[in-house]
């Protein structure tokens, strides 16, 4: 760029300097224009990110007495399904047995529930492959099966087979009492 401008510059005082004063004006104007366009582009891009009211999503509280052993309740949380599963002794035993298996996303069953609350498994119910909702009771591991692309999760919600890369996500939650949890 400097060459063409120097060549085109009829001002004998400016010629020979590199960059000369006219180059400086061109560079400064270009930088200002690019900066302005970039600065203006960001609001147009960022407007598509979650809006304030979407971000201010309330957490949900859930009464656990509604769930019998071996049952699962699905509620909506942040637009996604949330599985609240009360596991049977057999399911818990199978999950612990799975700790030593060759896992794609290594996690012990212990780390996926609250201490002393092995009965309660709370998971975000979206497949970590492409976000479908897995159904309970399918697949070879007694846990969840995703109908979209055939991912299989065990009774701890860990990925065992199929294209999904990760275990079903455990959301942030706390036990408010023995019968009440707060998610989020």
């Amino acid at each position, binding site marked *: 760029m400097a060459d063409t401008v120097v060549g085109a510059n009829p001002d004998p005082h400016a010629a020979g300097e590199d960059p000369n004063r006219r180059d400086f004006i061109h560079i400064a104007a270009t930088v200002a224009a690019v900066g302005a366009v970039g600065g203006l582009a960001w609001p147009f*891009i960022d407007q*598509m*990110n*979650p*809006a304030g009211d*979407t971000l201010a*999503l309330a957490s949900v509280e859930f009464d656990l007495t509604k769930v019998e052993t071996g049952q699962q309740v*699905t509620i*909506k949380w*942040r*637009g*996604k*399904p949330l599985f609240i599963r009360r596991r049977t002794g057999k399911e818990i035993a199978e999950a612990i047995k799975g700790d030593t298996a060759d896992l794609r996303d290594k996690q012990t069953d212990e780390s996926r529930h609250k201490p002393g609350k092995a009965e309660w498994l709370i998971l975000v*119910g*979206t497949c970590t*492959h*492409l*976000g*479908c*909702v*897995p*159904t309970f009771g399918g697949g070879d591991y007694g846990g969840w099966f*995703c*109908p*979209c*692309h*055939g991912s299989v999760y065990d009774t701890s919600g860990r990925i065992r*087979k*199929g*294209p*999904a*890369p990760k275990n079903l996500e455990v959301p942030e939650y706390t036990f408010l009492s023995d019968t009440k949890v707060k998610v989020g």
Partner: protein
Amino acid sequence: MSGHSNYEPKTGFERWLDVRLPIVRLAYDSVVDFPTPKNLNYWWTFGGILAFCLGIQIVTGVILAMHYVPHVDYAFASVERIMRDVNYGWLVRYMHANGASMFFVAVYVHIFRGLYYGSYKAPREVLWILGCVIYLLMMATAFMGYVLPWGQMSFHGAVVITNLFGALPVVGPSITTWLWGGFAVDDPTLNRFFSLHYLLPFMIAGVVILHIWALHVPGNNNPTGVNVKSKADTVPFHPYYTVKDGFAIAVFMLMFASFVFFNPNALGDAVNYVPANPLVTPAHIVPEWYFLPFYAILRAVPNKLAGVLGMFGAIAMLFVLPWLDTSKVRSMRYRPTAKLYFFIFVATCLVLGFCGGRLPDDHVIPKLTTFTLLDADLNSMVWLSRIAATYYFAYFLLILPILGLTETPLPQPESISEPVLSHSANAPAGAAASPEKRG
């Protein structure tokens, strides 16, 4: 566009306009006087058919937008209102929904025609790439349009497709959140999809203009693939190809109408008449038929990122094709070996489409039990998809590059006219010389 113009303004108004805005001259040079190879067969009518399809989609789409409500609580009901209460709403919606399928039927024929006759080769690379851009825009438009009725397939299709971007390392999750405008597919997603679904067809129209411009610089390819050598090889676009295209469009409309009036839901999925429920994914989730081959490639790969890359890579192959095919011979009429591989390629695309529509664990041959190879039954759609996907990529990355160097093509004719005129019996002197000129 091609420089020389034979347009002569006839009236005073045309002369006045011509020196101010030569729009009549542009139209005359592009669609009346444009010299076109005289041997174009019916596979060449699909360009005109596609322009017709785009027109139908824009007209019906603008009408539907007058009655549709882009809100998660009202979208489904507003579509049902269009079907039941809006005057002729059923007709306009069925035309739009089936029109999308017709558009893809035509574009696939158009693409395969280009593949067979080597229409992507020099000097038509830019023309071809613009066509690929149109195809990509069509896919984006069709996908977003399918989300708008907010049925079960709409919703979960949107979930799956937007999650594809989540497979990208590092930036993936931020991109999906950005696309959704939230933490899941929800009202903001539906709103922006509606906005973009309305925008993209006009972008397609813009690229179509560039596509036609790029066509009119080198002129049409033709079934022999041999360059136009003289004026004897061409006829004016009007009336020869306006009439031929018009006839083809009329036949195409028969098929279109038979779907709209007699089987309007044959190409759709019944599950999309169930309102969207974010808590339950349908047992068998499939995209519309025109995406099935790519869906099969996605599912064939057991790794999330690799599957997504495979799917986009399948489309990327088309973009780089002009530099993968090493053969100097355009038309496969004169490439018997390549022709064989081409027809296997067409069959492969159909097989992939078949696999994409079935469950991954479905048996290919019913009741036949084989053994498990690696992670799946050998007699399953997964393995058939893998074999077909391998051929799909091999066709572009191995067969076309190598074949161009090793094969022996058949002799090509000297010119477009030569194979016809060399038989003197076929060239009666002066017969049908210029039927376009009256008197």
